[in-house]
């Protein structure tokens, strides 16, 4: 099977902390893999390693078969990233933010196309030409989603994407992930949100102190079982 994301014995040692202890992970196209774990468990480090923002101490991360450390720019053609806090540039409008990030990814869209991406991500059309400084967190998150979608990436890396979103915005976000997944986009999502993970994930992985201690298909668990499993590993 061809994996779009793969980690082989991935280790990351910071000066005073071993953040990742030999992670092995494979994610296939169309799969939504949710990484659960407490703060400091190694979720963000995993995402940073796949993004090439940090170099592994040992092992390797692969995106679409390319080793991240060797091809740090090339692999970004296949990745889109949505951080926990999508702050964007407050003095630019939603449309201008999307135009900027798309142009950096090599896509030049017409204003009409940009508006389409933004509204499809759930941003009200009347907000498109307003400065992002006036947006709520949910609205900014939607621009972040539009940025990711407009990049036509094969992989979405999400760091606590629903944190602080209201239930409606979270639902819309889940809906979008399902749609992208059905189109073959792989998703690696670091989250604390067990129920969202159960709702959209195809597999969940539980991380503890830099180790992936358990991986389960979400179909085999109900929400309560997942919560119980999570709590078991957290204590």
């Amino acid at each position, binding site marked *: 099977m061809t994996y779009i994301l793969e980690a082989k014995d991935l280790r990351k040692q910071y000066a005073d902390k071993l953040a990742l202890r030999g992670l092995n992970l494979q994610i296939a196209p169309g799969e939504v893999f949710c990484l659960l774990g407490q703060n400091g468990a190694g979720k*963000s480090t995993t995402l*940073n390693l796949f*993004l090439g*923002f*940090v170099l592994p101490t040992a092992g390797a991360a692969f995106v679409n078969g390319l080793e991240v450390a060797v091809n740090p*720019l090339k692999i*970004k*053609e296949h*990745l*889109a*990233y949505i*951080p*926990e*806090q*999508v*702050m*964007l*540039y407050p*003095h*630019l409008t939603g449309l*201008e933010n999307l135009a*900027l*990030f798309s*142009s*950096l*990814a*090599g896509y030049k869209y017409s204003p009409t196309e940009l508006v389409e991406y933004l509204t499809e991500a759930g941003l009200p059309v009347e907000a498109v030409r307003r*400065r992002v400084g006036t947006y709520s967190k949910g609205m900014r998150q939607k621009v*972040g989603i539009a*940025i990711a979608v407009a*990049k036509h990436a094969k992989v979405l*890396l999400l760091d606590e994407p629903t944190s602080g979103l209201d239930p409606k915005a979270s639902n819309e976000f889940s809906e979008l992930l399902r749609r992208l997944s059905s189109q073959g986009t792989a998703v690696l999502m670091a989250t604390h949100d067990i129920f969202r993970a159960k709702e959209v994930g195809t597999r969940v992985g539980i991380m503890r102190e830099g180790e992936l201690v358990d991986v389960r298909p979400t179909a085999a668990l109900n929400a309560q079982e997942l919560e119980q499993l999570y709590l078991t590993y957290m204590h």
Partner: protein
Amino acid sequence: MMDSIAQKEFVSTLRDRRFAVLSVLVLALLLAATLVGRASYRTLQQERQLAQGTVNEQFRNQPARHPHRVAHYGSFAFRPKSGLSLLDTGVDSFTGSAVYLEAHQQNSVNFSQAQQSGSLLRFGEMTVAFVLQLLVPLLIIFLCFGAFTQERETGTLKLLLSQGVTLRQVAWGKIWGYSQAVALVVTPALALAAALLFTGEEFSSGVDLVARLTLFVLGYGVYFFLIVVGAVVVSAKQASSRAALVTLLGFWILGCIILPKATANLGASLYPTTTKAQMDAEVHEEAQHGINGHDPQDKRSAELKAALLKKYGVDTEEKLPVSLAGLQMAAGEEYSAKVYQQHFAALNATYERQNRLSDWAGLLNPYQAIRPLSMGLAGSDFAHYVHFQQAAETYRYNLVQRLNQLQADMGYGDKERRLDASTWRQLPVFTYQAPPLRWVLPQLLLPIMALLLWAGLLSWLGLRLISKTPVA
């Protein structure tokens, strides 16, 4: 990619109310300084032209007189201001503007604005150069301190980099965007200055002025560029916006206040100058030991007399076809001028060493590189002042020697006679031609090299540092 980031920075900057307020303030100061500089230039230039014309007329309209009386009546040389001094007054306000030209004496240039103004002038003038050298860098600091720290604090840096751009590309984009914002603030004032310089009838525009103004603008362009690069590098290397701002303000204080003062003090300590009174006394003393035109008993005076008697084959002064006193005056003038030139050269060499130390400090501090470059191009630096001083002395010496020759040609008994008033109208009056750019350019090579070195090193080393900055 860089263009997109630059465009983002430029647009974001323009829409940032804090920057808008600051830049409007700086632009207003620049425009005001340009207009005040022009008004000041016009007033001083008119005053000096009028004064020069008046003293020239007075000199030419003297009645029938003995030439030596005319030599003591003397004249004045007024230093015309250079066109670009409206942008940078340099040392003009502290050096004199007029020198009294007379026989036997090499007077110093007097009547500086600092002498005639209150002590407030010593705090520095609000010139275009002051704003460009000190305030625009502050504006750049406030503009750029958050270049990378804010991106990190808000998480947009990761978002940017995830699009497939490198840190180096982000940095260059930011540098280009901020540079455009700075240009937007500075250009109107420089355009106004150029318009005033090339359309104002009081300015003598020409190729030299165009070349000087072009280099002036380029010099400041490099200065602002390296400050933008430096600020972006500091922002990339600091953990927080606050730390970046404090660091940059620290550099500003060090570079614009502490180092220039320290260098000036060090220069004065390493290369002390004699006081004016001390130098005058030494010149007088040494001149006295030589041939003195007023002292016929002097040994060398006697030797001259003996040589003249021998040359003309006569035995008494009365039989000489020339005035012995006139030739003694000429010899005395030659000797005292030589003495003065030696002291003057030694004093200037000391000042040069002090200035050179400050110029070398430009390798450590860009502010101390742009300052001499700006003054030199504006024609308001120490070298241009010395050029005027020497032109005035050359004129004085030639005038006095010509008068001495007139006296010598009058023959024995000249003291009882006078020359016709029309004689003085045939004598040249003082006119001053400021040196061209090619004269001053070799002296500005060090500051130019220092600025280019700073820009090159910061771009190379700074951007290497940025590209190695941890992202997460």
